[in-house]
């Protein structure tokens, strides 16, 4: 970090109401009424984009008065890859690998979000077994994303031990992911109308083992953090935002619920039959960093509950079909494509032409670990979308950061930024 006292009025170019370029002052250069040169005491600090505590290539320009933040200006876009543009040149199934790379801490949930939106657009109803497996994928993603969050936030605030525990548990989920999809990070798990693969034999038992041991690890993290004086001092009352304001800022996920708004897409706009699972949605009351921590910790316990119920249902669906039985949507098995004329034609048409979606448009939001991941498709009857829009939860949550950092101490900016739970792959897309 490099600092220098500001000597002139800083400005950034902006577009005025009439469309002309104007310059918006960056600081508050008006001199103090008593004639003292207050502005000269202000200091600019550049945080990131190569700073480990910014959780990715996020750059914050902070204007400080002493140690207090007067203004925080986030700069994003360092990881911009143009996913939404690329999606317009791809078949619906070919977009799925792109979703792995948006929120790369919960790739399986992103895959599910895209597949569900494409199925809504095409009017496809998936099988019971497929939706149970997708619930497992979503909840595993929630657990690993929150585990990463908990470990790294602990490190940011000086607690190293829970990081090792949470990353150990996360590694076990990655092993499960690898056994299921063949990849640890770029899972590309779903297909429109079904899944890329069924779970291998013996996988359910490993998942059951994981569900048994995860709560023990969480209990240990709970014992270290929840009533820890240092942890409470660093997080309670920091970065607080109220109910009305949280709604006004369009926050979603744990950020919204920590502020006391009981909105969870799984409960309030159920998908994948979430309304048939028995689980609770934790809701905070103060909307500070501590409440966000409590909400995320409890969500992991609840995800474990959902996983156990899903495993019970999966046992009853042994041998049930996984994919929809529509040869225009789902690829035939390779052996049939090589031996059966009709299967080969369907295989050829799907690979070369893709699956066309009828003209129309749809928005579908799912409850991702970071918040509401929305997928907005506009189709014109071809196999490629006219517009594929991701509603990026951490982008919208991060937009609130300048408000949360106002008046906070510089050291609290680290805690607040961590509590937003951002992932730059999704923010920059």
């Amino acid at each position, binding site marked *: 970090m490099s600092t220098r006292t500001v000597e002139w009025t800083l400005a950034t170019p902006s*577009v005025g109401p009439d469309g002309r370029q104007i310059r918006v002052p960056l600081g508050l250069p008006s001199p103090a009424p008593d004639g003292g040169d207050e502005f000269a005491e202000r200091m600019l600090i550049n945080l990131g984009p190569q700073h480990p505590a910014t959780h990715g290539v996020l750059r914050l320009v902070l204007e400080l008065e002493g140690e207090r933040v007067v203004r925080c200006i986030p700069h994003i876009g360092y990881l911009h890859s143009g996913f939404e*543009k*690329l999606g317009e040149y791809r078949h619906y199934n070919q977009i799925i690998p792109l979703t792995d790379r948006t929120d790369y801490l919960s790739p399986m949930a992103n895959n599910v979000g895209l597949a569900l939106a494409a199925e809504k657009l095409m009017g496809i109803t998936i099988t019971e077994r497929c939706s149970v497996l997708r619930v497992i994928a979503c909840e595993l993603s929630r657990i690993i994303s929150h585990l990463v969050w908990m470990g790294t936030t602990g490190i940011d605030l000086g607690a190293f031990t829970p990081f090792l525990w949470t990353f150990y548990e996360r590694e076990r989920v990655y092993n499960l992911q690898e056994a299921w999809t063949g990849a640890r990070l770029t899972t590309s798990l779903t297909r429109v109308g079904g899944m890329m693969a069924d779970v291998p034999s013996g996988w359910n038992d490993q998942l059951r083992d994981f569900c048994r041991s995860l709560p023990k690890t969480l209990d240990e993290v709970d014992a270290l953090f929840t009533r820890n004086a240092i942890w409470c001092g660093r997080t309670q009352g920091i970065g607080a935002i109220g109910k009305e304001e949280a709604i006004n800022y369009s926050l979603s996920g744990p950020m919204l619920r920590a502020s006391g708004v009981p909105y969870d897409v799984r409960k309030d706009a159920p998908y994948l039959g979430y309304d048939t699972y028995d689980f609770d949605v934790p809701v905070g009351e103060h909307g500070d960093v501590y409440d966000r921590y409590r909400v995320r910790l409890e969500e992991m316990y609840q995800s474990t509950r959902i996983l156990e119920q899903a495993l019970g249902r999966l046992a009853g669906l042994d041998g049930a079909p996984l994919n929809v039985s529509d040869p225009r949507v789902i690829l035939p098995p390779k052996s049939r494509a090589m031996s059966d004329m009709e299967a080969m034609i369907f295989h050829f048409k799907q690979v070369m032409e893709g699956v066309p979606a009828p003209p129309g*448009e*749809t928005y579908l939001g799912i409850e991702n670990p970071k918040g509401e991941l929305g997928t907005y498709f506009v189709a014109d009857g071809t196999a490629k979308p006219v517009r594929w829009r991701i509603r990026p939860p951490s982008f919208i949550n991060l*937009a609130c950061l300048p408000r949360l950092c106002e008046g906070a101490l510089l050291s609290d900016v680290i805690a607040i930024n961590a509590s937003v739970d951002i992932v730059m792959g999704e923010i*920059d897309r």
Partner: protein
Amino acid sequence: MTERPDGVLRAWTSCGDEIIDVSPAAARGVLQWLRDTPGQEFNYLVDLTAVDYRDPERPLEVVYNLRSLHRRADLRVKVPLDKSQPLVVDSVVDLWKGADWLEREVYDMFGVTFRGHPDLRRILMWDTYAEGHPLRKDFPLRGHFTRAEQTRQALAANPEAHYSLEELSLAEAYAELPEDVRKRLAAGQRGFVP
């Protein structure tokens, strides 16, 4: 709706989603009406984006996804903007603060100007980006400039071209910058790509 505000062009559904089309001049008024009217109460802005269609004749649409958290209901408001006219629509930042970055993104990606936005500038692309608005359909996948031109510009760019003014003010090497660069910075000019 009991009293229907002026400016609603049509109401329709697609894939079960309820959608209304609103004329650009009335857009902000209708959105405010939807937010504040009892019985509507669409108090949550889920998403704000835009769509450019492959058919060049079709207008570009700014899309607002609204939600009523009390009523658990969603509504999509679409505002068609004629592409032969300047793409301008009123900002809703004063209604929903969450619209701030979303409107900046639409401005960056589609070139739609939001009248009354407090700080409308590019957000994902850099400030000196000169190729246009990437999500427009007339924007080629690899950009307007050739790869050779993009490389040439990257190699020939002034070192300060990628830095914003506030960044340069932080640089320890400010005193060592050439005289003309310091003059331009003091005059409030940004770096440029030659």
